[in-house]
């Protein structure tokens, strides 16, 4: 994606101060997104104290070394000099291809439809197995071990919940409110169950992941925190509206909303990520997470910028179409369906741009602050590149009536795997499962949250 030179210069200027302590060995993998990964790299080196150890380099020495090389930061060969040999074992690779996956996917979708959805549990196990088994770390593939029958059971229950939620608003608003209330109360529980299931049935080199079933933490970060925020907001609103000057009240509300949007909400999202990462274990070692609220504040600050930047071209496009059609506002009123189509045209790209931004940055934030044992995860997804992938995927899926879905899924998986790696000097041989307890976990949670689309921030 070509970027204006002025913009690139601006990014270079704003990143300059950060580059001083950025890691110098990173090779820009995507030429179009030359600068963006640098800023992510800064999170790790400046915030994460147990830095990945290159052989024989002390902390002070390394800092000097980094600063000394800051000017040559874009030289790709630096990577080769720093990681001698061992780095080849620590990369994630994706081996899947669209042709094989298309055949697997299409047959399984067809069987699901023919069996009125019953086979879908087997189908999802098979397609997930393909995706897991084609993702490799250090040359070894991941494994998806779930059984179809528990998934089917979970799916049937999730379908009943969806049906109830779809029916409730037609019958009575009170019923709907009750359903949503009950679902809200159960949501943290579903989240824990979902994570338990996914971790339990994901394995690498014969050792499965583990998720600690910390229900207290889940309720704290996915229910109580929202309830507290809602109560505080209501109390503040009430105080402001009942006794106060109107303009002052409006100003205070604006300040309150910005504090929420740019300070509190990012902090909550970060804490949720921390909780999620720290409950995970692999081979007797816990994942560790270094929480830094600044990262999340920056993400949500920029979301506003992305919104404005994407709303302008979308608005111009829609305005131009409306002008070409030559309708007055009164005439527009008479074409409700065209207006609906135009509103999709306007909102679709904006939503995609914002959704992709949050997803890319949150994924980077999660991995770049997560470590396990002596290994530090590192994700360098570039927003521009991911946005391009998502946009072309969306266009391809729409144009092929869904037949391009496998190709789209493979592209995203490949890009994500190529931009994820472990940093550390070990050979990944030292993970040892401490408890041999391998209890079965019900698939209820994982099916409910994938069907209802809870945003659990992973």
């Amino acid at each position, binding site marked *: 994606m070509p970027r204006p030179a002025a913009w690139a210069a601006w990014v270079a200027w704003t990143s300059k101060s950060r580059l001083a302590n950025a890691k110098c060995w990173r090779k820009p993998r995507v030429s179009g997104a030359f600068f963006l990964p640098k800023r992510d790299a800064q999170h790790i080196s400046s915030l994460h104290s147990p830095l990945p150890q290159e052989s024989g380099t002390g902390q002070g020495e390394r800092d000097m070394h980094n600063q000394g090389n800051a000017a040559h930061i874009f030289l790709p060969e630096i990577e080769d000099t720093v990681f001698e040999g061992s780095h080849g074992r620590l990369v994630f690779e994706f*081996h*899947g291809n669209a042709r*094989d996956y*298309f*055949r*697997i996917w*299409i*047959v*399984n*979708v*067809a069987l699901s*439809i*023919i069996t*009125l*959805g019953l086979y*879908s549990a*087997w189908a*999802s196990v*098979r*397609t997930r*197995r*393909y995706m897991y*088994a084609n993702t490799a770390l250090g040359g*070894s593939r991941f*494994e998806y071990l779930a059984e179809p029958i528990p998934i089917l059971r979970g*799916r049937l229950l999730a*379908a009943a919940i969806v*049906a109830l939620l*779809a*029916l409730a608003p*037609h*019958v*009575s*608003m009170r019923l709907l409110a009750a359903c949503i209330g009950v679902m809200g109360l159960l949501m943290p529980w579903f989240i824990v169950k979902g994570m338990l299931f996914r971790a339990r049935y994901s394995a*690498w*080199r*014969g*050792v499965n992941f583990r998720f600690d079933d910390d229900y207290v933490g889940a309720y704290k970060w996915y229910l109580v925190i929202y309830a507290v925020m809602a109560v505080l907001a209501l109390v503040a609103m009430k105080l402001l509206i009942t006794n106060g000057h109107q303009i002052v009240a409006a100003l205070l509300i604006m300040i309150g909303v910005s504090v929420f949007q740019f300070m509190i909400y990012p902090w909550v999202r970060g804490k949720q990520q921390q909780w999620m990462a720290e409950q995970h274990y692999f*081979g007797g070692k816990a994942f560790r997470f270094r929480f830094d609220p600044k990262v999340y504040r920056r993400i949500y600050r920029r979301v506003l910028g992305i919104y404005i930047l994407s709303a302008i071209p979308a608005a111009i496009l829609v305005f131009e179409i409306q002008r070409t059609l030559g309708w007055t506002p009164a*005439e527009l009123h*008479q074409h409700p*369906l065209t207006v609906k189509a135009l509103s*999709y045209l306007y909102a*679709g790209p904006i*939503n*995609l741009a914002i959704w992709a931004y949050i997803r890319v940055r949150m994924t980077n934030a999660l991995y770049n602050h997560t470590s396990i044992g002596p290994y530090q995860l590192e994700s360098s997804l570039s927003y521009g590149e991911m946005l391009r992938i*998502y946009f072309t*995927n*969306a266009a391809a*899926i*729409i144009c092929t009536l869904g037949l391009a879905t496998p190709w789209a*899924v493979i592209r995203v998986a490949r890009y994500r795997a190529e931009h994820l790696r472990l940093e550390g000097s070990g050979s990944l*041989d*030292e*993970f*040892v*499962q401490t408890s041999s307890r391998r209890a079965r976990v019900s698939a209820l949670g994982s099916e409910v949250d*994938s069907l*209802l*689309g809870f945003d659990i921030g992973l």
Partner: protein
Amino acid sequence: MVRGEYLDGRSTRIRQVQVMLEGDQLSWRGDGVQGAALLVQVNVSARMTGVPFTLRLPHGAQLQIDYDDMPADWFRGRNRIESLVDWLERKRWAALASVLAIGLGLIGWLEYGMPWMADRVAARMPQRMDVAMGQQTLVLMRGRMLLPSQVPAERQAHLQALFDRFSRNVAGLPAVHLAIYDSPSIGANAFALPDGTVVFTDAILKALPDDRSFLAVAAHELGHLAHHHQMREVMRHVGSTLMISLAFGDVTSLSGVSAALPTFLLNNHYSRAFEADADDFAFKTLAQQSVDPIAFADAMHALEQAHPGEAGGGEVRYMSNHPLTEERIEKAQAASHQFQLGRH
């Protein structure tokens, strides 16, 4: 003898081994480990293109053998269902047949299967639920969208009597009654609620030229009530929501935006069928009570003038939830023709 990787199931250390099959005994050796197990005690993962085989050994350890290295005759007859699926996945014709099956399956299921099931479920719903649904809509709309009518009391009484006499002679109706409201936001329109309330707005009463065209509109709304269209429509909405969320459930990207449009189109498609059904009901009942169905066409013409442009031919057929006006008028004219023939 094939190459494999031995993992003890406790640590992440890989040991390169040679795996052999002698009779019914599987054995492995190399890199400091060796062992053997009966083939029947080894659990093997199902075959899938490009995916390595995992052989789960009795004591928690496992062997991994690359997809291309696995001899075809080991573990024959295991994972029967998945082996069949795998065989299909490797055939080009199966992929083509799947595309066809998905297309036909979706059309058949959306057009016949799901509506059929939704109708069965709707028929089993208690009457209480219809009443609750109707009451809730009225409560939500009254005072906001539905304001007290400005139509003079004697005209209201006249229409009420006309409506009651007409509906009394229609077979298969639940308890129905007429309600008249002033509604600037809705405009010239009429609708039926599942509890049996038929709502006319002041604007439509003003637009309709005579009593016969009023009866024509009323007959259309009674058609919705006689055939339980609202409950059936709700059940179809639930069905389509369920199907679409199942279909998009796995794909987290974009599902919000992309699922909204098919849901909308699908629900519109079902509504259209119900509208056409209510029209047919109206033609039939009008004729039964000796009202020429041409009154329906008159009502359509009058409404078209009240809402210029909206009912015009500009909209795409599938996007429109009422059948196109010209089409409805033509059908009314055909019904009228039949009615005239029957009289002579």
